[in-house]
């Protein structure tokens, strides 16, 4: 197990991500955050707080569950438990900032894009991830990346958020059994 970022380093990462998003979306007009369950939701919440504290802008935040859009349902024998999607604003004409913890194969993001498109027609969708670990299986890239980490497929990235896991940190372990 190897520590990649501790609480202090993560603080800087979050602040840099917030600054980059602000810079690209001048004034944050018509912007909204959408966090992908589970940890993307807490990361989106942190960004929302930063926008408010440091830049004085308050933007809506929604929660997306991508279970019903997964591409492995057709080959899985047991469907995962569904948690609800909670997006109480219209996505039409919005600049959606999609937030997830780790970008890996890109399949989760593909599902999330379809899920958002089923809710309406956003103006843009931008992707913000805390970690990009490579090994994409689909042509998907992030607009904002907290940390790029070179990994092998055997390794596993653990993103922890205080509100859910009790601490803020990122570490890497080598415990994945490859099929």
């Amino acid at each position, binding site marked *: 197990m190897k520590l990649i970022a501790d609480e202090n380093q993560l603080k800087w990462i979050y602040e840099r991500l917030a600054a980059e998003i602000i810079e690209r979306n001048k004034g944050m007009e018509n912007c909204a955050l959408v966090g992908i369950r589970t940890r993307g939701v807490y990361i989106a919440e942190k960004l929302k707080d930063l926008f408010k504290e440091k830049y004085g802008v308050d933007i809506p935040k929604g929660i997306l*569950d991508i279970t019903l*859009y997964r591409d492995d349902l057709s080959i899985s024998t047991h469907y995962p438990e*569904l*948690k*609800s999607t909670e997006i109480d604003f219209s996505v039409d004409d919005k600049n959606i900032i999609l937030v997830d913890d780790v970008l890996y194969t890109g399949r989760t993001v593909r599902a999330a894009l379809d899920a958002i498109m*089923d809710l*309406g027609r956003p103006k843009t969708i931008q992707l913000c991830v805390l970690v990009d670990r490579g090994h994409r299986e689909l042509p998907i890239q992030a607009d904002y990346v907290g940390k790029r980490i070179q990994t092998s497929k055997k390794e596993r990235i653990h993103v922890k958020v205080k509100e859910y896991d009790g601490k803020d940190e990122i570490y890497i372990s080598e415990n994945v059994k490859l099929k």
Partner: protein
Amino acid sequence: MKFNRKDLVSIRDLTKEEIEFILEQAQSFKEINERVIKKVPTLRGKTVVTCFYEPSTRTRLSFEVAAKRLSADTLNFSASTSSVKKGETFLDTLKNIEALKSDVVIIRHPASGATKFASKILKASVVNAGDGINEHPTQALLDAFTILEKKGRIKGLNIIIAGDILHSRVARSNIFLLTKLGANVKVYAPPMMMPRDIEKTGVKIVKDFRDEIKEADVVMMLRVQLERQNKALFPSIREYAKFFGFKKEYLENLKNDAIIMHPGPMNRGVEISSEVADSDKSVILEQVENGIAVRMAILYLLIGSGGES
């Protein structure tokens, strides 16, 4: 939790945890019905057949729309317009439906136990949409979902179920479900429509309906089932309405936050007066709306259970 059932045949078979899990999942599905585009791609390529040997409006439409919102293909079979009229047996019909490579078969049948029988024959998942006077599990689940939504809990609530308890599969499924979840259930019926030994199911008998509804959080009225009586069990409809119906003057006896339910179809002016059915305490149309989310959850869970029984 893992849901490991091939079929949903009865509430009696389910554990409290399974019931709570279905209700929780239904909560997650409800949001889809409030979207502009009410459809998700989850059950693409799956086939859902409704196979009804009795008339139905709500249940069949509700299952069909639930399947369609999950992107499954739906086929509808009604005995009244099918080869059953030419003498085809239930078993042969089931085998033919199986040959269509269906994933879920939703069955309503006048014989109690018909869906249990079908579930043993078919490899596909079977959902009971009402079998004789036995059970109607999805109705009980959507009733429980509606109660939960309105009252925030089921445990400890005072619930009165009133009407033709003897012939009501809705009442049976609800009694099993609500007592499992810890509600105080009472039943009220004309003596000839009250099953013997009903108290063994854990319910109490209401003596004075008008008085006892004062304590009720939920009053569930049942339809008088004229089609299931081989002889008249009461002298006239007017007399039933007078002594066993929910009349408008009873409304003032209800608690402010009490709710009135009815599984439909209603006989207005018989078991429930129009003023009661249309009052602000009535949640009858919300029951119908919630039925879709509950049935979406059931289709998702059964197809996604890995086909284990």
